[in-house]
């Protein structure tokens, strides 16, 4: 049987293969945007994604370069009619993720 989440699967496969992420979280936010005008007539339940990626591959790259790297991996999915309409990205190196965690802990305390 065909997957019910082909886009999410594609994101997971391509990002995992290319970036060997230590953390990869994919959130499908499409339902929050289903009423948006550009989504009229769209039957896909996979149009809006939020993706958190932690990878060594981002080291010594500025944020735009990191995002371009991910956009490049998903070029076909983003260009396709009825494909990915919006892709929110959070891209960190393992150190940045640690620092972020420490900061959040400090704020909680």
């Amino acid at each position, binding site marked *: 049987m065909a997957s019910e989440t082909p886009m999410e699967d594609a994101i997971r496969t391509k990002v995992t293969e290319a970036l060997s992420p230590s953390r990869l979280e994919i959130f499908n936010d499409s339902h929050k*945007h289903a009423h*948006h*005008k550009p989504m009229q007539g769209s039957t896909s339940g996979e149009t809006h994604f939020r993706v958190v990626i932690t990878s060594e591959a981002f080291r010594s790259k500025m*944020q*735009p370069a990191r*995002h*371009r790297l991910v*956009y490049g991996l998903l*070029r076909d999915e*983003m*260009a396709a009619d009825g494909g990915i309409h*919006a*892709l*929110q*990205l*959070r891209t960190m190196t393992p150190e940045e993720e640690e620092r972020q965690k420490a900061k959040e802990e400090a704020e909680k305390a």
Partner: protein
Amino acid sequence: MFSTGRPLFSASLRRAARPLARQAALRPTPFLTVFQQRLLSDHTRQAIEKAVSSAPVVLFMKGTPETPQCGFSRASIQILSLQGVNPAKFAAFNVLEDEELRSGIKEFSDWPTIPQLYLDKEFVGGCDILVSMHQDGSLAKLLEEKGVLAPLDGPSNS
């Protein structure tokens, strides 16, 4: 101000706030001839270069600053406004008004999504990058270094 030398796209905040029909009428060169996805024509490239250099801070967005047509464009405008960007140094371009601009800017910036922020003709990023730079303080620092913030004393009345 209405010489043919001005940018092809409707530029300033003020201009972006005008009704669409009026804007189209004011535009000296109609900018909606060829639909090209991959090959950016010289004409498109020049028009986009002009747009990018029309102000120190340039945002390509969906809708206008007053009525954004997309949540990510709205968030970007809110951040620039929270940061206190000087309206006199800011220009917004509505890509929904112009299919050639919409596809052209994606290729020009090598960036597949809108909004897109340029600072001194340099690509800064999309909405996620703006949000994270807003949160970690690097956006405030960058905008201050570039001297594009409104003066603190007294409200800006531009």
